[in-house]
């Protein structure tokens, strides 16, 4: 099965222990489903003030599809400035 890259920034990198994960691109996968999976696999994500995903460098909604070769990123609460 083909894969997509999952980038981990800020506290997400501490929680997963990785800068980048390769994950299987299951057919019909959406950002909403991936988010639910991550919350189950890494319960520490449930303690964050918010959790978003970006797909190909844009914020995703629940329905945003994820396909093989996509660049997906875990966006914990941002704190620039």
């Amino acid at each position, binding site marked *: 099965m083909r894969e997509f890259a999952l980038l981990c920034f800020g506290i997400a990198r501490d929680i997963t222990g990785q800068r980048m994960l390769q994950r299987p691109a299951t057919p019909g996968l959406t950002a909403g489903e991936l988010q639910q999976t991550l919350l189950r696999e890494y319960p520490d994500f449930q303690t964050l003030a918010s959790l978003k995903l970006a797909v190909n460098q844009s914020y995703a909604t629940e329905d945003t599809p994820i396909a093989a070769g996509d660049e997906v990123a875990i966006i914990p609460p*941002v704190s620039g400035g």
Partner: protein
Amino acid sequence: MNQERIHIGRHRLDTEGLQNLYSQPQDGGIVAFTGTVRNATREREVLHLDFEAYEPMAVHTLEQLREKTMRKFGVRDVVIHHRLGRVLPGHAAVVVVVFSAHRKEAFEACAYVMDRLKKEVPIWKKEAFVDGEVWVSAHP
């Protein structure tokens, strides 16, 4: 000083340089916000901040924010520079400069950029104290 209007990087920020570089004789007002690293958070001494970004997305998000701000407030130009890596107390982490014919719009536009930047742009900072480190705003 980096001379792009939108820039994220490790070099020191230069508010005045950006003001001089981009000001035009039709401007009547320039509002510059310089966000500096405070030496304390809730009375705990801060040793330094470490900034990181999802760089391509952060640049892209800032470019969209710049264009939206110019349209929304009718200001002539907007420059946004953000530092990455380690920044010590007293040093600038972010600079936003707005150039406009009129001052009211310049103030509103500059405040708007900072509000949106803090909510939308994928940049993170970790505060280092004597007894540990904290990702800012991560937890409720």
